[in-house]
């Protein structure tokens, strides 16, 4: 499968999911301050990663796209709700090439919109009963509940590190935080939910955990690298934004572990300042240190190793599945991560 076919399949599943999201948004007031804004982030066009994995896993395990649609809608709505709230919490300026929701409106409205998106994500789960039956629908519901809980716990860890300006983190701390904050909801639960639906609950979902964890971590590390090295108009977020926000990325952790004490002190002082007082020049200087200490190269290597681990898990788990485009889609997402050249 070519990269373009992979992207077109993700786009196709993403478009079907977006159509479903729009169907679940009430056509009533208050539009200007709520419902129009609920549709804002989803309509900006994401990668369609989560619905793509969910639908592909469902089909690879014998299910139909229609059976996974409501779950995919929930996953994508929740993802966008997280983004709205994350952008407020991170004080971000740009999301998918446009001003963040709170920048375009205000924080109070953005938080309320995020709340509404979370509430709206519940109804598709309820609707699941009609097509999947009570037992499988309940299983999916509880997968989602666990997913949200893990995500907020992971976010809490990172926000806490930033509030307390924690600078003595290790690789394992990062792996734990990203497992909770990103992996469960980006890869692990979408795969698990898809397979549960495809098999009508006859699969042990925990067997997808390592695959989803390795994929999710590799994906997140690569996304963090792009934040430092990509072109802003291509990436869709402010370059070096993660440094300014004080995100505890693998590169920052590596830098803090390896730099000289004087440099450590400078970086720690920078991170202790309120976000609005951190300037881009200082962030670029920290980026220079990351290059100097090979923090970015090290992170690239880590992402590749994890993608390699994911590929091994994939071949173990999916070897008994028939060769289909959906199985190939998951494989190609992993291969894309391994071969990524930034």
């Amino acid at each position, binding site marked *: 499968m070519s990269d373009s076919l992979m992207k077109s399949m993700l786009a196709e599943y993403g478009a079907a999911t977006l159509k479903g999201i729009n169907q679940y948004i009430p056509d009533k007031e208050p539009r200007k301050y709520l419902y129009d804004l609920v549709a804002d982030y989803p309509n900006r066009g994401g990668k369609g990663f989560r619905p793509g994995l969910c639908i592909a896993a469902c089909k690879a395990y014998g299910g139909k796209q229609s059976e996974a649609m409501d779950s995919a809608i929930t996953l994508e709505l929740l993802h966008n709700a997280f983004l709205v709230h994350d952008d407020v919490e991170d004080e971000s300026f740009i999301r998918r090439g446009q001003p963040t929701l709170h920048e375009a409106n205000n924080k109070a409205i953005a938080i309320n919109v995020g709340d509404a998106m979370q509430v709206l994500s519940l109804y598709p789960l309820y609707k699941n009963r009609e097509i999947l039956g009570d037992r499988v629908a*309940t299983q999916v519901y*509880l997968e989602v509940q*666990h997913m949200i809980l893990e995500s907020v716990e992971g976010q809490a860890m990172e926000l806490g590190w930033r509030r307390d300006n924690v600078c003595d983190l290790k690789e394992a701390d990062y792996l734990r935080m990203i497992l909770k904050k990103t992996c469960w909801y980006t890869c692990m639960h979408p795969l698990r939910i898809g397979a549960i639906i495809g098999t009508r609950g*006859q699969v042990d*979902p925990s067997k997808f955990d390592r695959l989803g964890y390795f994929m999710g971590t590799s994906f997140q590390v690569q996304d963090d690298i792009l934040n430092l090295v990509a072109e802003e108009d291509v990436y869709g977020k402010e370059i070096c934004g993660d440094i300014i926000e004080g995100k505890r990325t693998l590169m920052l952790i590596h830098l803090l572990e390896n730099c000289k004490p004087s440099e450590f002190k400078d970086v720690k002082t920078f991170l202790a300042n309120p976000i609005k007082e951190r300037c881009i020049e200082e962030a670029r200087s920290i980026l220079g240190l990351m290059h100097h200490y090979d923090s970015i190269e090290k992170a690239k290597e880590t992402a590749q190793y994890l993608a390699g681990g994911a590929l091994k898990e994939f071949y173990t788990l999916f070897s008994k599945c028939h060769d289909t485009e959906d199985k190939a889609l998951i494989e190609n997402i992993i291969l894309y991560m391994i071969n990524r050249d930034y």
Partner: protein
Amino acid sequence: MTEKKTTKKTEEIFSGAQRLINSAVNVLEEEIAAGILAAKKIEKKVIDVDDIRSDPNDLLNRIRRDTHEAVDLFLDAFTAISKQVNNLAAFKSNNSTSEEKPTTPQASTNKGAIVLDADNPVKPGEKVSFCFSLLEDTEETTNLTFRKTNLIGLNNHTIFSRALKITPDKVELKPNEAQEIMVDLTVPKNAEADQYNAFISTEGPNAIKVVLNVEVIK
């Protein structure tokens, strides 16, 4: 010379990748153990466990009767809470004419985790032992190799996995053969007081998952 360098580089890459993957797997398994214990605590608070266990038809109850009496069975973390409710739903289904009656394979493929609680708190320097039994109930011989994580405390203290000794650490189970597994924990003298848990598991499609739970006091 060049070939040697290439080989060395390949070995370094392999070793680096292996170390990273092991570290990631340990983190995952530690989190799974923490999730199982959290689910267990919630179950104790909100579910009438005696009532649930009184159902003679429930597969999990049959497993409970068949295992060592010290073994308390709870459910896997993420199937976790899901399985708790699924089983509650299943009881209802069994008592009605619902078409959603769960089947045995469904229950058995969603392998639950076994939680082993130490009977009493232990002090640094003391030893505590856990025991569980395995029974191969298929017609195939199974080879199992156990993995263990560090013990992680609720207050983020750590006891390294070398304090745990699993005997035997590798098992070959023939059809219908049973094997008792001992897990000895020697609490290090410098261990901090905390409620610790560790995750013991095997690789493969029908992985064994055991959570150890022990309180260390000063």
